[in-house]
């Protein structure tokens, strides 16, 4: 598989937060979910990739070229959907498009028109009057109308109802049908990724904690439930996160076979992405 985007040693210091040595790469043909709780560093990382936040150190390459040295040319290959849109809300959708579209050398008006018809967007409507769902659809129409190879989306599903979120997932899968397409999608609503993600990158407190194929991650981790009697000092160490009640426990492990061998009578379930995320970012032991 071809590497589309490579982030290496990215650092950015703010007074109350910092990105620390963030490194990962995106492979062509994959939907990569970028997960983490609010404030973990997802938006800062995405803004650094797009050149909106200036990095203190590190390299960001798109198609093997440094993005800050070939900004104009390389950004033609990126479609962007930012959290909250960042649109001039006093403009109509038509006016905003007329400002946005000329930036791209390969803007395709026919593709844009087909999206706006499909989403039933009234182009003379002011952006400020759009619902959150319609605004996201408009952002998608803008992002996908210049034949982008890499679609970068920052929290696109935040605040959307389940129906619109499901529609967005379908659009992403449709986008991926075309050869050579890649999606990088940040979210804290991990259920969206169950359906579409190929790879998951977990960021917490400005550091990459996990970077793994989704199926591998779900196969190698287990959600363990059982009586408290199964727990001792040794078995407790098998868990990434463990929650104990007076009678029982629930925990996430990345040592499923060791749990199977050493803890009899416990229930081993397939975890959700959210279980795994919370296991890695939620601290060690929490009593309920």
């Amino acid at each position: 598989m071809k590497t589309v985007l490579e982030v290496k040693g990215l650092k950015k210091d703010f007074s109350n937060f910092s990105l620390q040595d963030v490194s990962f790469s995106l492979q062509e043909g994959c939907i990569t979910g970028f997960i983490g709780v609010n404030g973990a560093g997802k938006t800062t990382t995405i803004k650094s990739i797009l050149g909106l936040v200036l990095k203190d150190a590190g390299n960001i390459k798109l198609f093997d070229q440094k993005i800050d040295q070939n900004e104009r040319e390389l950004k033609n290959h990126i479609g962007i959907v930012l959290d909250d849109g960042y649109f001039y809300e006093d403009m109509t959708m038509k006016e905003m498009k007329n400002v946005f579209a000329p930036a791209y050398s390969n803007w395709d008006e026919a593709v844009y028109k087909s999206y706006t018809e499909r989403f039933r967007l009234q182009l003379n409507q002011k952006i400020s009057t759009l619902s959150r769902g319609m605004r996201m659809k408009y952002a998608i129409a803008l992002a996908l109308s210049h034949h982008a190879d890499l679609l970068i989306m920052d929290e696109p599903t935040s605040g959307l109802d389940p129906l619109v979120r499901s529609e967005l997932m379908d659009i992403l899968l449709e986008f991926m049908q075309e050869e050579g397409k890649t999606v990088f999608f940040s979210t804290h609503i991990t259920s969206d990724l169950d359906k579409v993600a190929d790879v998951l990158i977990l960021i917490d407190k400005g550091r990459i904690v996990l970077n793994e194929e989704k199926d591998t991650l779900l196969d190698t981790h287990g959600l363990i439930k059982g009586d408290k009697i199964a727990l001792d000092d040794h078995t407790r160490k098998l868990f990434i996160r463990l929650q104990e009640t007076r009678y029982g426990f629930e925990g996430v492990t990345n040592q499923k076979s060791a749990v199977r061998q050493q803890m009899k009578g416990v229930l081993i379930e397939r975890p959700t992405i959210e279980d795994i995320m919370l296991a890695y970012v939620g601290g060690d032991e929490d009593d309920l």
Partner: protein
Amino acid sequence: MIFNLVKKDLILAKRYLIFMLVFAIGAPIYIEIQTGSLSGGFLGFVITVLFVLYMLFNTVSMSEDKYQGSALLSATPYTRSALVKAKYIFILLIFVGSYIIYSITSALVLAHLPMLNISTLGISLFLIALYFGIIIPLQYQFGYEKVRYISFFAIFITPFVFPGILKWLHSNNISLQMMLPIPQGIQDLLPFLLAVLIGFLSMAVSIRIYSKKDL
């Protein structure tokens, strides 16, 4: 590419454009009548164009501050440098537009509104370049909210300060024309050259500031 960004600023300012058009026609006549045409149209023109630019530029800056649309545009192939340059072109465009409106108005009601000569036009451009040449980089550095009080105060005092200065110059027989030992043609061009110099310097400073901002 830059033209589309200038168009963007015009769209953001569009709700005031018609009002400003009417203002650009009426205000110079009113000011000239009130001041007794001491300045050969200079005062009416420069105060009018300063107010028109202040209103329109502030409307655009307010929208930028509120919606952060420049962040989205900076994520596209538009460069930050192009976004800054568009602001300066926007100012120049409105200045030229105001001059055209003034000239047409003057041609229609010559008795009340004298035509501007090349020298007063140059001095007007110089003053506008000076004002916005300072305000724009300040706004990029400190943001619209912090700078708007300074710009408001500066604009607010001009109708009180300018006529006083002109009356004083007039009563002391000092002309707006500069008294330099150089040919008149070059003297007339000097304010234009200074305005261009200030404009380019200010633009370079603004580009430098904006290119180092986290959006």
